[in-house]
């Protein structure tokens, strides 16, 4: 084990999978000569050549269609969508092609296709480069949605996504690229669809996704000083969603707070809350609390942007409210 950066282990995962399987190739904007806006594909063109690390024109819709076509034809494309905010440009291909062709063509085609993207606010990137839009994709049957919060999860899950025979939306976070964590030297793969308990606790379950896991862990430290023990559950993959781990945790703590960076209204937290209400109601001692971004566009100003998404203080307040 050694401490390595999130962005570096994503790159390691790409290298390992490209070395293992010659059908794996990368395409996207700025990934080849420049090495990726977030440096994940740095110098991969020198290792694998421009036929396997391809700069594309700024044409998100056709990039997505081409990746889908290549997947059907036997490749395992990994498409980098530089900002999640631009994913609307790919939606027709994701919603009307990628998600459903395996089903409607009755299994005649497989779509081993990964769209890597990154979302999240607090980087002063303003309203068109800061959003968290995962709920759109969780709503569509046929697309897996992965959202790792640590370098360990990022590497193991990206390798799993590349080996998966289905379309996978792999959501990174712009603030996580520069975080470090323990990652084994030897190869490992993590299962898609399995949550991870990032911190054990007994008083309240906090279900947190992506960068909000870090906020939840900070909240846990502070709450511990006050004698409150929270269990931080990171779903890691939203589709498929690991209900079982959430259920076991809530049966233990009898309290649930959900926190994500996406807007609260229509966010995936609502789905998690509904699952808890439908299937775990008898375990609850208090109503489920959801934390999400305020329902406004993400503003630019340093005076405003930090107010839009939840932070550790919001989580601490929510836990205390739940335990009242």
């Amino acid at each position: 084990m050694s401490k390595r950066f999130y962005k570096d282990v994503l790159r390691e995962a790409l290298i390992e999978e490209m070395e293992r399987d010659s059908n794996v190739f990368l395409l996207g904007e700025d990934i080849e000569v420049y090495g990726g806006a977030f440096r994940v594909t740095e110098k991969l063109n020198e290792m694998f050549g421009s036929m396997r690390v391809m700069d594309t024109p700024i044409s998100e819709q056709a990039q997505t269609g081409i990746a889908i076509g290549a997947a059907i034809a036997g490749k395992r494309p990994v498409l980098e969508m530089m900002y999640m905010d631009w994913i609307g440009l790919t939606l027709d291909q994701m919603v009307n092609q990628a998600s459903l062709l395996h089903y409607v063509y009755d299994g005649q085609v497989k779509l081993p296709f990964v769209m890597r993207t990154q979302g999240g606010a607090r980087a002063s990137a303003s309203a068109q480069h800061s959003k968290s839009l995962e709920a759109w994709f969780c709503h569509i049957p046929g697309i897996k949605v992965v959202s790792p919060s640590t370098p360990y999860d990022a590497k193991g899950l990206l390798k799993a996504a590349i080996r998966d025979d289905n379309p996978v939306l792999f959501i990174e976070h712009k603030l996580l690229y520069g975080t470090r964590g323990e990652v084994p030297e030897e190869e490992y793969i993590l299962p898609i669809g399995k949550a991870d308990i990032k911190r054990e606790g007994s008083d309240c379950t906090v279900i947190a996704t992506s960068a909000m896991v870090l906020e939840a862990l900070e909240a846990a430290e502070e709450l511990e000083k006050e004698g409150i023990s929270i269990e931080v559950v990171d779903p890691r993959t939203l589709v498929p969603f690991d209900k079982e781990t959430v259920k076991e945790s809530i049966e233990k703590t009898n309290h649930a707070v959900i926190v994500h960076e996406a807007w609260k209204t229509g966010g995936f937290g609502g789905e998690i809350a509904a699952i808890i209400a439908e299937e775990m109601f008898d375990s609850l001692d208090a109503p489920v609390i959801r934390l999400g971004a305020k329902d406004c566009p993400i503003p630019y100003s340093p005076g405003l942007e930090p107010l839009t998404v939840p932070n550790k203080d919001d989580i601490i307040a929510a836990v205390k409210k739940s335990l009242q």
Partner: protein
Amino acid sequence: MFDNDKMKLLYKRMVVTRQLEYGIREQHKAGKVRGPVHMCVGQEATGVGACACLNDDDWVTSTHRGHAHFVGKGLDLNKMVAEMMGKSTGYCGGKASHMLIASREKGMLGGCGIVCGALGIGVGYGLTFKMDGSDRVALSFLGDGASNEGMFHEALNMAALWKTNNVIFVEHNMYGLTVRADRHLSVENISDRAAAYGIPGVSIDGNDIIAVIEATEEAVARARRGEGPTLIEAKTYRVLGFSTGDKGGYQSQEEIDSWTTPEKDPIIRFAKYLQEKGICTEADIEELNAEAQNDVDKAIQFGLESPYPDSSVLMEGIFA
């Protein structure tokens, strides 16, 4: 051009396509084929002629109006009709509809109900063939309306830039939905748009199967040589309106009549050609017509007699 047997087969496929449309229209009225059905009466030469230039391992992406493409690519008529009726014996087990028929075995991948929605996928096929050093070709059918989509520009730019193994075949049937071409196209010839991508563009008479074959053969040969995509625009006419749900009123009778004369009708023209070239006698033509009708009748019977899928398959195959 092809040998006499293949020419006869192509003629039969055109008649099969036409009779299929009328047969399906009857079944739709009877409630046995449901939903909107998009028929290609008058456009048989393009689908049948272009697909005749491809092998089974060349892949085609189709449109919402793909019956001539399916027949042209040699798909089994029984399984096509069964799919149109939502039966378990259909190409996609009844999950697809007439719009989304696919056959991996025959290289039809596949039907697409979103205008221009499959062009990027087609370029993905062509790119893969090129990456693999193969001379396989992907041909994407589009309508005139599709040439106004953003995908058209994005995909053609990339196909041209990377010289992928593609042919883009536009069936210009004069209408995008209910809107006539002169009210939705900024150019008279869609092939003019090829110049924007630095690729060859050609406009042909889409009701002349010989012209269709000649243009497609050249484009396919170019793609096989690794020289990149060609844009073919075949001018034809959509005789029966947009779909079975079309209430009409926007295609004048004079216009329809002008496209359905013996001089314009693609099937009558091809029959005349075959007789002039001594490939067929009048009796041969009548025999092929009868065979085609018989095939269609049998396929409709097969579809009607087939069962609907078992409810157990509903939630199967969402993920691989």
